């Protein structure tokens, strides 16, 4: 399960939309061991491609050192697919080098639909996980009352079953 703040998801989706039709990429850092993404860092896609992304190696060194200095780690590594579903490609799997990270994929193929999915990629094995968006803005007309245990401030996205 990835728990991530609504404002960070919004910023990631905005970044992906801005760079569309090229793929966008970035990191969300968080305190080491917390599994909580707190600091959104949009990265440059040095490949500037519609089908490929790559962190600029010098920007990555700077950002990774900065995380180290702040006792942070890359909790989320995200990128967009601009014409296909938000599912890791074989290229994504071969490159996945952070076994502790949540690999978040955003698809911008539909201009009006937010498509985000999260995966663990360890030793070449892809496992989808649910995404919980916290502090979500809930349409007051959508839900009239809340049952015990329900929270109007979170939205859970289950895995889509692939």
């Amino acid at each position, binding site marked *: 399960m990835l728990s991530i703040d609504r404002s960070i998801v919004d910023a990631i989706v905005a970044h992906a939309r801005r760079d569309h039709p090229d793929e966008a990429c970035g990191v969300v850092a968080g305190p080491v061991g917390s599994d909580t993404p707190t600091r959104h860092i949009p990265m440059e896609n*040095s490949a500037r491609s519609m*089908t490929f992304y790559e962190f600029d190696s010098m920007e*990555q060194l700077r950002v990774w050192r900065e995380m180290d200095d702040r006792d942070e780690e890359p909790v989320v590594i995200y990128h967009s697919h601009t014409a296909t579903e938000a599912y890791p490609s074989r290229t994504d799997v071969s490159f996945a080098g*952070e076994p502790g990270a949540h690999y978040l994929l955003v698809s911008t193929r539909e201009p009006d639909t937010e498509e985000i999915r999260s995966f663990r990629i360890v030793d070449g094995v892809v496992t989808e996980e649910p995404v919980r968006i916290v502090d979500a803005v809930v349409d007051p007309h959508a839900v009239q009352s809340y049952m015990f245990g329900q929270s109007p401030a979170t939205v859970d996205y289950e895995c889509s079953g692939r």
Partner: protein
Amino acid sequence: MAIEVRIPTILRSYTGGAKVVEGAGDTLGDLLTDLDSRHAGLKARLVTDAGALHRFVNVYVNDEDVRFLGALDAKLNDGDSVTILPAVAGGAFGFAAAAAISQHRAAAAAISQHRAAAAAIAPRVARSAVAAR
């Protein structure tokens, strides 16, 4: 002659969990051979069978990407700091990715400096794609 080497999480299984190790060598290639004598298997994760630096890692000497310093031939001095990071890359399509890799400036620099690297990159990506299928 001691050179500090920073190891990324994914490779710490080779260093007994250590984040920083020390090694020696006049070039990056020599350093990796030296490290492999104490951390067996580490070099194979960084260098391809064809003897080029692996596509899936970034290696830095102090503040420079070694692809711009001669890759495995990059000269090292006592007190240098070497940092290894997993390259973060991917994308929607495997074949297009291979094309993008060949156009990438860092890869292009490596190719021009290392003819062996040119031969190694494309088959390596193709092999990985097959392995991941």
